[in-house]
């Protein structure tokens, strides 16, 4: 087994290779505005570090969010197209699950929250690092204060809003290494992984910008 995992649902552009037992190479860069530019070079670097070519990969693991859409789609589109070109399966993993796994908490409950922008967070509650208790959701921190009161929390969304998450701590972003390890574990246990389709959780803003198509520069 050789899994290539990638996630672009948080400010981190993160890529890892996993052979079914261990992570054999990985890369994480935090730059919320350049997912599209950073991802492919990161894949290339990780493969080079492992001394492997892409066609050795037997499956793709991709974070399906929730996360800011533009960045999220970079990972999903890349994973979809790798799957098409290589003829290998593409597995989805909820990005919050990846973060929960990376947090390595054996006894919860605890909360994972990422930054959803617009003063909101994407969040879910976990019993332990492998067990999610609630569906991923998007909310204003103040509106979920009762539900998360007294619980430890991880993720940039928790760190951003200390009023709601006073005991927030690292990890801040998801890592592809954790996602790959989680996926390898679930696949080995014969579990089914979600389809690689995005968790947007919000309807698109139905606003047509004034100049909705670009005009030739003068």
């Amino acid at each position, binding site marked *: 087994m050789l899994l290539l995992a990638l996630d672009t649902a948080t400010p981190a552009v993160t890529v890892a290779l996993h052979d079914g037992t261990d992570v054999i190479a990985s890369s994480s860069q935090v730059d919320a505005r350049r997912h599209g530019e950073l991802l492919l070079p990161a894949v290339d670097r990780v493969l080079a570090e492992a001394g492997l070519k892409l066609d050795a990969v037997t499956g793709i693991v991709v974070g399906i969010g929730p996360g800011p*859409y533009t960045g999220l789609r970079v990972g999903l*589109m890349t994973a979809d197209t790798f799957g098409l070109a290589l003829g290998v399966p593409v597995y989805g993993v909820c990005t919050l699950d990846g973060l929960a796994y990376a947090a390595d908490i054996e006894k919860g409950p605890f909360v994972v929250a990422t930054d959803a922008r617009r003063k909101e967070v994407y969040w879910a509650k976990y019993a332990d690092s492998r067990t999610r208790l609630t569906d991923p959701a998007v909310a204003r921190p103040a509106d979920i204060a009762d539900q998360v009161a007294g619980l430890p929390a991880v993720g940039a969304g928790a760190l951003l809003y200390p009023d709601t998450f006073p005991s927030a701590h690292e990890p801040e972003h998801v890592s592809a290494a954790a996602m790959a390890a989680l996926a390898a574990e679930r696949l080995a246990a014969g579990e089914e992984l979600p389809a690689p389709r995005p968790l947007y959780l919000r309807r698109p803003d139905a606003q047509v910008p004034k100049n909705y198509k670009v005009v030739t520069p003068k």
Partner: protein
Amino acid sequence: MADEPLVLGIETSCDETGVGIVRGNTLLADAVASSVDEHARFGGVVPEVASRAHLEAMVPTIDRALKEAGVSARDLDGIAVTAGPGLAGALLVGVSAAKAYAYALGKPLYGVNHLASHICVDQLEHGALPEPTMALLVSGGHSSLLLSSDITSDVRPMGATIDDAAGEAFDKIARVLNLGFPGGPVIDRYAREGDPSAIAFPRGLTGPRDPAYDFSFSGLKTAVARWIEAKRAAGEEVPVRDVAASFQEAVVDVLTRKAVRACKDEGVDHLMIGGGVAANSRLRALADERCEAAGIRLRVPRPKLCTDNGAMVAALGAEMVARNRPASSWDLPADSSLPVTEPHVPGHDHVHEVSKENLYS
């Protein structure tokens, strides 16, 4: 023919997910999935709706194009993609797909310019572009006159709209007339039964001191909307067919007049018209008439090649391969305002020298 470059092109700059395959100047496949119906109720393209649709449509559309062309992905000589200009989020979906596809197949990647692709697509219809070529590009996003001596390296803007694109004006007027979105085809249809000289709508930027090749459709848009509102306020019925015909005439009169003038001034005997508005029947007819009178050869691709599609991107990609232009690098960005003067985005390790000299001034 078999040694001509086999290229797959991906286009996602607006609301069409296009994947085309060409061999040299021969069109092999032109698969398009459009999200236009999802935008209709908003009266314009909603970027996030378009981006979501691109992600879902991409893999099936690539599959469909390969089947249609009857070629294997392994045999491709390169992958081309629209790097800009266009909607940033929408472009990024196509660029991500193209990079992943090229990388996985071990093929070179060519990030190309959407406007140059609109010109180059004519090679699939009428063979190699004459050099130089004058091009009038008109759509919901662009209205420009471009002069190109080599579509892979030299595209010079002669003029462009200073406010709205021609297609935007069609959409706006269709909305005022309650005809729905997009406005181009429906106005064309009504105009056929109307009198183009019924109402004298203004011709923007056609005064003696106005810029010779620039366009303006904002004033026309307002004039037409006011005329309609005045009729309604007076309790009179709006003559939809005459308004459509007179408005359309004002647009295509200015477009063709300026395009023919640019050809004459530059001594260019070829005019190509591309972009979605090139499907307009009156634009085609009037351009035909005026080009013939001026001794200019008119080249207009079939309507399906004029609207946004992947074949046009593949056509320009094939030309890049044929002319040995350097490939793009893996960190190719999607550039929503990529200038028309950059027909493609070469990688950084090969510095691509283009003569800055103006060959036709």
